[in-house]
């Protein structure tokens, strides 16, 4: 059985998920996630050592399509949806820490 989720845990997962939380939100989410995880304690407490996990409801096999060229999405139509574009590509702010 895992310990109750802490404010630091919530701050950590928020960072991993690229979400910024205010102090007020951190307090509230810690409490709300704690309540949901308390409810999940019934599952966490089960002894299921002999049970196989199921990740998917139907047996999945690799599906191959015929190796035939077909048109993809229209490039201009796709780029028209982007917040910023340059030279036919997606434009983003700087990735590494160097001076711009």
């Amino acid at each position: 059985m895992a310990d109750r989720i802490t404010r630091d845990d919530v701050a950590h997962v928020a960072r991993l998920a690229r979400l910024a939380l205010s102090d007020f939100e951190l307090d509230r989410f810690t409490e709300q996630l704690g309540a949901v995880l308390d409810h999940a304690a019934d599952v966490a407490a089960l002894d299921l050592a002999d049970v196989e996990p199921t990740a998917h409801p139907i047996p999945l096999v690799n599906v191959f399509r015929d190796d035939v060229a077909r048109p993809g999405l229209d490039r201009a139509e796709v780029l028209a949806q982007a917040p910023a574009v340059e030279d036919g590509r997606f434009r983003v702010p700087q990735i590494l820490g160097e001076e711009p």
Partner: protein
Amino acid sequence: MSTAADIARAVRAGERSAREVLDAHLEVIDTREGEIHAFNLVLADEARAAADEIDRRVAAGDDPGPLAGVPVALKDNLCTRGIPTTCSSRILDGWRPPYDATVVERLAAAGAVTVGKTNLDEFAMGSSTENSAFGPTRNPRDPERVPGGSSGGSAAAVAAGFAPIALGSDTGGSIRQPAALCGVVGVKPTYGLVSRYGLVAFASSLDQIGPFSATVEDSALLLEVIAGHDPLDSTSIPEPVPPLVAALGEGVESLRVGLITELLGEGISPDVADRVRAAATTLEAAGAVVGEASVPAAGFGLSAYYLIAPAEASSNLARYDGVRYGLRVDAPTVAEMNEATRTAGFGDEVKRRIMLGTYALSAGYYDAYYGKALKVRTLIMRDFAAAYEQFDLLISPTSPTTAFRLGDKSEDPLSMYLNDVCTIPTNLAGHPAMSVPFGTGDAGLPVGVQVLAPALGETTMFRAAAVLEASAPTLEERSR
């Protein structure tokens, strides 16, 4: 208002024009949409053009298809080419998908006319449609109450007569629960029966698209149109669609029907449980053999679901990064831009689920939470398999209560999650289930009875639904 089956018959026969049918529905929308807010977007001009085209084809001797001239409402997490698709989230601000979902193509090929995109809980996460960035939808049976969710806009659109049929998506009950609360029919098909190409992903091992309608026949008709193998969805089942409409009148003589005992006790409102027992009596009177069924692990379904679905969502929603489409909040570096965009773009419930899922998958907690939840999924599938050795169908409530008031549960996520206790086990097992309106509870609000079947058992499920519908009390508008 006419049923979809009647409309299609009349339009194909040239007795009614698709345009006249559409205009009648647009008039109802004009009258009541301001109060209900079922739609994020009404596509009046596009729909008129589509209806006129159907009429031209009929005049030219063509058959536009089994849904000729039938207005349909689409949940706004289904991609429509060139038409905004928002998932009721600010993060998809301004996005116009470059392709249609397979179901959207199939509807058009069957002659249906899309009237609009319906409101939902953001990214289909919720049970009341209050988690929409564009404001809540109200229940047409009582506008002080929620329509259920997450496909609340689609359920409300059908209940209000805005369209005879609608599509929703169901990950943990998001079609069936709003259908029950709004007094309409709602179907979650077998996992893989309907292509999800172009459905914005929430929890990929659970999501399934399905119909809403006022009548059982219309849901059968709509499901026949949208079901069937699609090479663009790797989880699509490569088998023929089971016959639905043709089997509707076959009755339930000597079918074995089990009442799920675990879903009739604690936590289920007595007025709802009474209607489910009345449904069992109705099926028995029609010749079914009714007994008590047990799905012991169903009680753990809710906890397992609220670990599995957020875990999958945390991965699926990682794609909203402000780079390729939708919202971008500018910042000096990519990492800061990602964070600023996601923080501004997602609502609280989506943030909660992303964090819950990230936590359940993180080092040190994976085995205790996500790993255990996957094993519970195995237990639920085993229990269903055992129950279906004794029974052809199972029945239960769809929702533990009738429609609740707006604001009643929106501040307490766990109490909201408990709405899904009866619908979740089906999704975890990948089975079909549907909600059929079966009279009203204490406050005169609709009650839905859930009919569950084993994988690809839709034909039998619809037969039982038709029997229930035939003896269900008529729903009346509540006096307000």
